[in-house]
């Protein structure tokens, strides 16, 4: 468990994505089976152990440490598992294999758990104690997605990311066949049904770029502002994947129930009430929930609007041109009123399409998609066959309020900016942006922050409210978590308005009006 503890500790303090991938790769390469598989599953949240409760841990500690000293310590450290790992008074420093710890947690009955956990803590050194307690409480919080784990795996051997993603959902911890395959063994014979297949993605384009192409070669459809998904029913096995291959079926039992067909479809997940498609914020309420209440299922019913078919009734359509796949899609019966097909738009010239795009029939449309009629379905983001022509971003003039130092290549530069809008006489923070500017502009922003700091909070500085930033964003959601009541999507700094006085920045009201 020493290697796993080292990995956890490094990941907890590493911001850079590349550095995280490297740490994980090194861990996977240096750790024997089955420990590395369990470690991987623990990090990605795929290791389903019965979670040990905080009260059990408190009870354990009360037997060892004075209650007041424990309370003072917990108050200082701020994390229960970490407090216990630090003050556990034992001299053990054994390198217990991770699978032993996993087996202990998986196999010990509830009554025997306190003694078993205390026994394990006695055998371990401090950082392994923390790793073990994090494993036991199921709370890793190291910012490593299953997607990143797969990228690390793909970097380790011959199988490509797409190959790994295709079989990922048919595998279970500790992934021995997967590691064998990566190290040159045979591809795992997948008994698993309904695998994820790599999604085809588009590249961005604007009117000027599109004019280089013949409109007759392209079909157009609306780009709905939901979540791109892959919906599968493979001989009765139903799955709903996000476009990165995360299985999100648990959050959408109503959609799984509606998949009364045989095939794999590509479409948009939306909250729909009758003919009305709800805004993205409504869909977001359904995400990342362990259980969906009956009330939520009724008030926020989800459904699919399909764009494409990958597999249909046993036939792989991916090699066919779009026009032929679309014909199958249009004729198909999906057996549910929660599923329909996104319409193809009628246009002859790019200007026709520009007119349609300028006045979409629903506010939940974020632009148009263009697909070459002869394009096969290819996973990844091939340049050319598919374009997205998004509606123009919204912009607002905001005032820089706080700046935070960046990491990695931006170490030492103030590169993460919190900005605010006027609410009467006050500036209210409305969002945070950390890209959109050039390296040269970053240096200028950094200089501005240093010369205009009014207060410091660790790595964060409050700056004099005098620099106006033009912030572009893709949409707005209502949010109870933000003081302003609004959360921006994809905010970035589109222009630095050195010329504009802060008093002339926009009002919060202006932003709120954009909500509707």
């Amino acid at each position, binding site marked *: 468990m020493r290697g796993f503890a080292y990995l956890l500790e490094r990941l*907890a*303090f590493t911001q850079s994505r590349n550095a995280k991938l490297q740490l994980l790769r090194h861990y996977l390469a240096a750790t024997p089976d089955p420990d590395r598989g369990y470690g991987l599953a623990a990090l990605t949240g795929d290791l389903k152990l019965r979670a040990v409760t905080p009260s059990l841990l408190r009870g354990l500690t009360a037997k060892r440490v004075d209650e007041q000293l424990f309370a003072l*310590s917990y108050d*200082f450290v*701020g994390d229960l598992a970490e407090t216990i790992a*630090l003050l556990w008074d034992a001299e053990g420093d054994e390198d217990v294999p991770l699978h032993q710890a996993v087996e202990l947690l998986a196999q010990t009955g509830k009554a025997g758990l306190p003694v078993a956990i205390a026994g394990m803590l006695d055998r371990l050194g401090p950082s392994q104690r923390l790793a073990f307690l994090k494993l036991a409480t199921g709370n890793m919080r190291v910012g490593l997605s299953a997607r990143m784990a797969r990228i690390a795996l793909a970097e380790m051997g011959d199988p490509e990311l797409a190959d790994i993603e295709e079989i990922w959902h048919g595998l279970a911890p500790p992934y021995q066949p997967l590691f064998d395959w990566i190290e040159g063994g045979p591809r795992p014979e997948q008994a698993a049904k309904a695998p994820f297949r790599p999604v085809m993605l588009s590249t961005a384009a604007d009117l000027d770029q599109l004019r280089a192409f013949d409109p007759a070669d392209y079909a157009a459809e609306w780009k709905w502002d939901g979540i791109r998904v892959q919906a599968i029913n493979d001989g009765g096995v139903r799955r709903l994947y996000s476009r990165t291959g995360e299985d999100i079926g648990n959050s959408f039992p109503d959609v799984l129930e509606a998949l009364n067909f045989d095939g794999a479809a590509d479409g948009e997940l939306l909250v729909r009430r009758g003919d009305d498609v709800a805004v993205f914020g409504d869909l977001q309420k359904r995400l990342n929930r362990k259980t969906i209440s009956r009330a939520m299922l009724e008030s926020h019913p989800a459904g699919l609007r399909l764009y494409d078919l990958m597999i249909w009734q046993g036939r792989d359509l991916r090699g066919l041109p779009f026009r032929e796949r679309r014909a199958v899609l249009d004729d198909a019966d999906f057996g549910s009123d929660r599923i329909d097909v996104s319409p193809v738009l009628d246009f002859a010239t790019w200007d026709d399409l520009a007119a349609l795009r300028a006045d979409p029939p629903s506010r939940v449309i974020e632009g148009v998609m263009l697909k070459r009629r002869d394009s096969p379905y290819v996973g990844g983001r091939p340049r050319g066959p598919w374009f997205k022509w998004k509606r123009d971003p919204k912009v607002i003039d905001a005032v820089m309020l706080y700046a935070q*130092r960046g*990491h990695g290549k931006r170490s*030492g*530069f103030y590169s993460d900016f919190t900005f605010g809008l006027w609410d009467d006489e006050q500036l209210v923070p409305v969002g945070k942006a950390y890209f959109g500017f050039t390296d040269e502009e970053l240096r200028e922003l950094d200089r501005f922050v240093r010369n205009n700091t009014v207060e410091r909070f660790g790595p964060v500085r409050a700056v004099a409210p005098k620099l106006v930033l033009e912030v572009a964003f893709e949409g707005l959601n209502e949010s109870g978590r933000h003081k302003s009541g609004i959360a921006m999507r994809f905010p970035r700094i589109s222009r630095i308005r050195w010329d504009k006085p802060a008093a002339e920045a926009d009002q919060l009201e202006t932003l709120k009006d954009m909500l509707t």
Partner: protein
Amino acid sequence: MRADQILHPTEAGLYCPPGDFFIDPIRPVRRALITHGHGDHARSGHGAVLATRQTLEIMAIRYGADFATEVQQADGSIRVADTTVSFHPAGHILGSAQIAVTPRKGPKIVVSGDYCRRVNPVCAPYEPVACDVFVTEATFGLPVFRHPDPAAEMTRLLDSMTEFPDRPHLIGAYALGKAQRLIVLAREAGIEGPIAIHGALQRLCDYHVGQGVDLGPLIPATVEDVPARLVIAPPSAFASPWVQRFRDPVIGFASGWMQVRARARQRGVELPLIVSDHVDWPQLTATIRELAPSEVWITHGAEDGLMRWCQIEGIPARPLRLVGYEDEPE
């Protein structure tokens, strides 16, 4: 004479009426006894200063030769008005001392200053001094602070340098004491090549070398392309444009606080190294047991934790709540 007539806290710091002197005063006073050279204990502008030779020399480096009107080197037992004082190694930094105050009649008091019981290659080891009242710091006065062997922390540094061979490792360490200790620890761990140091460390590193502390080859980290994989700098440097010359650095920080993740996160570091110049909880409590004073006074730090421990152990204790001392001074 009662103990609190011999020594008691005032706004300017800990005052001794029978000797008419202050220990580590935070304001300019007529007569000051200084435990060690860290800026919050050793300030300039006093009338007469009594301290170890090395502390006096460090003060002169930091504040200029005229940092006090009059200085006296602490050597053996010294009469100061109606008291006798003596200085004893504290194991904290170069020149650091505990100050024992013996009145003509009454309890003997030892003011530890900041102290450390772990072997510290840059200074003389802590020397236990029997006393009636032990005045201790409690910087790490909670049972969560059990600092690991610094050699193990150096292994973590080496592991990271192996893991990321192309990224320079920039380690923050306070300029006086911690920086030099870190360099010696790195040498002991097998780092033989040049170690780059920030300009703010130069004079204090030179002074340590002059005092016989072998720091190995050091190069300045002030040029555009620093040809060293390990760079030591004061923590404040990471907020300055100086750091921009390094491409994708691993930023570390060497401090006893790094044991707590939230503290390390606040620092924004990628590689927290637990290296402390203070007693941790086991050393602190073991020292009090060893000295067995009839009373413990706590100058600063996590006094609630140590107060509670003394209560459990049945040792009379009281907090002095001295202000002006930092968590871990520069």
